[in-house]
């Protein structure tokens, strides 16, 4: 089976600003992929490229082995829930189901009806009266009931309260299990993704910082604590993601596939949140966006 999402040197520019640059990814099928990064990192740009709302400035992208939005068939294979879950303000819940039925050949009306019932939506209700959670659930229903192979969700949780988040994710995971969907969902919070994702992409300042299966990422990243030392003495197989020093102590977050042999280090497991924060911090310092006074040593 071909990759769910494959990009090579993908880039998108708006005027003079690069929203995404040098993005090379290959995501295997059957996974739940988390796309995480701060606001404005380029997450929406990447997802819009994947659903064909945007065309790349340079580079290449294929989704399920074909060009995004190439034709009706390709459009039908990808379900999309856009940021802020846009819905037609003048239409009712039932109207939206008609919308889905009229615009999708593979529409599963029974699935849609069942989900609406589960969520507890009244079909006659206008979408203006819906809560944020209900809107998100309705948007998810529209995306799932077209029976896609890949479901892409752009910040689906950002406007939801904690209870609605849990319900939404539960609902999403049920659909994933039931229909063997691949999923890509973005968030600016790692905690949202930690419980549901198998694969993580960290996107900061329009660049992919790291991407991989979460298990592998956690196994290859370590926090090392030990007496203060020069970083140049580390073995070449260890990539430093983050380094902080006090007078006596150095704390590093490193990436390596090799075992850590130096006995002077205390080696700790690292959580996903710390891992992501380390990459975000590195990206920020490389880009020089961190305020200069922080780098001045006393």
């Amino acid at each position, binding site marked *: 089976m071909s990759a769910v999402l494959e990009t090579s040197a993908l880039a998108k520019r708006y005027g003079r600003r690069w929203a995404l640059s040098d993005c090379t990814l290959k995501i295997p099928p059957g996974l739940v992929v988390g796309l995480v990064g701060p606001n404005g990192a380029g997450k929406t740009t990447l997802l819009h490229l994947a659903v064909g709302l945007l065309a790349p400035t340079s580079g290449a992208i294929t989704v399920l082995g074909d060009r995004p939005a190439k034709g009706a068939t390709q459009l039908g294979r990808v379900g999309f829930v*856009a940021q802020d879950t846009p819905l037609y303000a003048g239409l009712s819940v039932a109207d939206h189901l008609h919308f889905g039925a009229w615009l999708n050949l593979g529409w599963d009306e029974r699935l849609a009806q069942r989900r609406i019932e589960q969520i507890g939506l009244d079909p006659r209700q206008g979408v203006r009266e819906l809560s944020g959670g209900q809107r998100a659930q309705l948007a998810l229903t529209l995306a799932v009931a077209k029976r896609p192979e890949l479901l892409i969700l752009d910040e689906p949780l950002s406007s939801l309260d904690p209870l609605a988040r849990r319900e939404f994710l539960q609902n999403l995971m049920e659909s994933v299990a039931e229909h063997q969907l691949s999923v890509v969902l973005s968030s600016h919070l790692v905690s949202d993704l930690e419980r549901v994702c198998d694969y993580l992409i960290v996107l900061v300042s329009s660049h992919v910082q790291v991407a991989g299966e979460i298990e592998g990422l956690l196994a290859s990243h370590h926090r090392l604590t030990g007496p203060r030392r020069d970083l140049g003495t580390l073995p070449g197989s260890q990539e430093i993601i983050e380094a902080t020093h006090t007078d006596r102590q150095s704390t590093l977050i490193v990436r390596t596939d090799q075992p850590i042999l130096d006995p002077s280090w205390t080696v700790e497991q690292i959580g996903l949140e710390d891992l992501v924060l380390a990459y975000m911090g590195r990206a920020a310092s490389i880009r020089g966006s961190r305020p200069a006074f922080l780098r001045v040593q006393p």
Partner: protein
Amino acid sequence: MIRLTAREFRTQAIVALGALVIAAIVLAITGARLTHLYNTTVANCKMNGDCSTATSLFLSTDSGVQGTLDFLMIVIPGLIGIFWGAPLLARELETGTYRLAWTQSVTRARWLAVKIGIVGVSSLLATGLLSLMVTWWFGPLDRVNMSIFGSFDQRSIVPIGYAAFAFALGVTCGALLRRTLPAMATTLVGFVAVRLVIFAAVRPNLMAPLHRTVINTVIAHPTFTPDQGTLPANAWVLSDQTINAAGNVIGQNGSINGGTILSPGATGLTIQGVGTCPGIAPPTPGTGGVGPALQTCVDNLHIRDVLTYQPSGRYWPFQVYELAIFLTLALILVGLCFWWVRRRII
């Protein structure tokens, strides 16, 4: 996709249809009365002897309806552009629902084709039907009024072209500006501007105008008012220049430059820039008419009017040309829309 657009457009279509039905009823009733009035008064006025009273009375019949219809025919194409064209894409782009619509299993091109097709064809049908009714209703009045070019924009087939252009302009503005209100405003400005340019600069030159020189004659006392001569019936007079014997232009539209040109008195008449008729006494006030001696003198001065005009026979060719111009503009804009929505938007 067709059902979706039909559902979205339902309310507007019902409103438009309702308005058309009301217009049809009102026009059927008043129009029948108008035809009857024409047959009983104007048609046989020659037998009764007093045609000018009959025609002026007839022309002022239902003047409220006349004014309303002429006004509607001018504004309805613009309203279609503003309220049906401009929001068509702008609203989707403004509210973000395009992200929902364009990720269903319908390509963007088809989505746009159906939207433009259904709403656009409805615009043309509505305008065409209204124009048909209005043209029929005005039939007897236009026959009496003898000014078919004066109501050129409000009759026959050109309103369809205006509606097509206004709609396409609205859709295009919406696609480019991505916000409904600015798109509406731009549509209004653009539509009025193009209409004015075509009206003032293009329409008079669609075909090379004809010229006719007519003898200018004295017609009234006590002021000397030259006559424009006999105008070709129903013609569209673009200019009317009065010239003297040497061929120099001495006036416009029947009057002669230099203000009042009568210098009456016992001694005679002086026409500025032309000549004099000395020693001929003007006729006595109140008698009407002009003395034959004065008339002969003025005739000998060779005052003539050069009329530049489009003859009435060009009404239909002009209607077809102008319709073609606006339909072509509309098609170009629709093409631009497709290109923009498929290739350029975000």
